């Protein structure tokens, strides 16, 4: 029973922590963000498994985590307004060629990040070529080029 409770508690904690850390961390924009996520995985393991290394414990913990995830997605489907608390909303960074400085600052995304994404996804050369740039809910930046 405690394996189930432990898994749920850690799932809830990680959820809250990542939600408040913002979209940047999710998207692993810097090497450090990536390293952070890597070592968080290690730190979580001890809390999840405790000193029980049996196969059954692994099954119970994994089963509980997946079930919690499925339950979350079903709840969001049933109550769409809950979606914005769980996932957040997309943030417009460049609106019709104009930089939205306030949003960029709050979301901690700078021009270089947007340019990098513009080059990678659309092969654009300059910021002028970008019509819209949106920081999506999962932390990735989507680019709509100026045609």
């Amino acid at each position, binding site marked *: *029973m*405690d*394996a*189930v*409770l432990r898994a749920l508690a850690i799932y809830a904690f990680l959820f809250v922590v990542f939600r408040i850390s913002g979209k940047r961390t999710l998207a692993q924009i810097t090497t450090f963000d990536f390293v952070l996520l890597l070592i968080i995985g290690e730190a979580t393991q001890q809390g999840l498994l405790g*000193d*029980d*290394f*049996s*196969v*059954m*414990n692994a*099954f*119970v913990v994994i*089963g*509980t985590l*997946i*079930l919690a995830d*499925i339950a979350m997605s079903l709840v969001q489907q049933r109550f769409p307004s809950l979606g914005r608390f769980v996932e957040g909303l997309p943030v417009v960074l460049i609106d019709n060629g104009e930089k939205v400085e306030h949003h960029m600052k709050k979301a901690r995304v700078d021009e270089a990040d947007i340019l990098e994404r513009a080059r990678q996804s659309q092969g654009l050369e300059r910021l002028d070529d970008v019509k819209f740039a949106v920081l999506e809910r999962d932390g990735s930046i989507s680019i709509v080029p100026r045609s």
Partner: protein
Amino acid sequence: MEIGEAQDTRFQEREWRVQRAGWVALAVFVIGATLGLFGPGPLSLSSVASSEGTLQVQYYRFARLGRDAMVTVTVAPDVVSDGVVDVWWNSPYLDEMKVNGVTPEPETVTGIDERVRYAFAAHPGDELTITFDLTPDGMWSKRAEIAVGDGTERVTYDQFIYP
């Protein structure tokens, strides 16, 4: 829209049905685990007593390989003779366990035939509670036989050990 081979509505519908059934099975599994069906926990704690009630054993009906499953043996005062209480375990069961510790510490531990005898110093007139800290080293169905004193008062329990 035609995407050829990749599109097969019947298969997709079947896949979704299987998925939903899987969710239900998963929920049943997790609820079972919460109820203590798959390992030691408050809900898999059981107790059994001997016919005269002089021996009471508290154990976990379900245990896991490599995870502590304590057994508590309570002996009534009238079994104490000469300040010593003997608690007998069947070897086939104890062999499959790692004995991490026994509280209180026994005076002697002797192997006799197919049994192990733990002798404890006891205060006459006092009930004695002994905790055996065991970690299963084997798997699947196991049967334990615990006796006290001269062996007439005995208790049996079945335990299932998950891998």
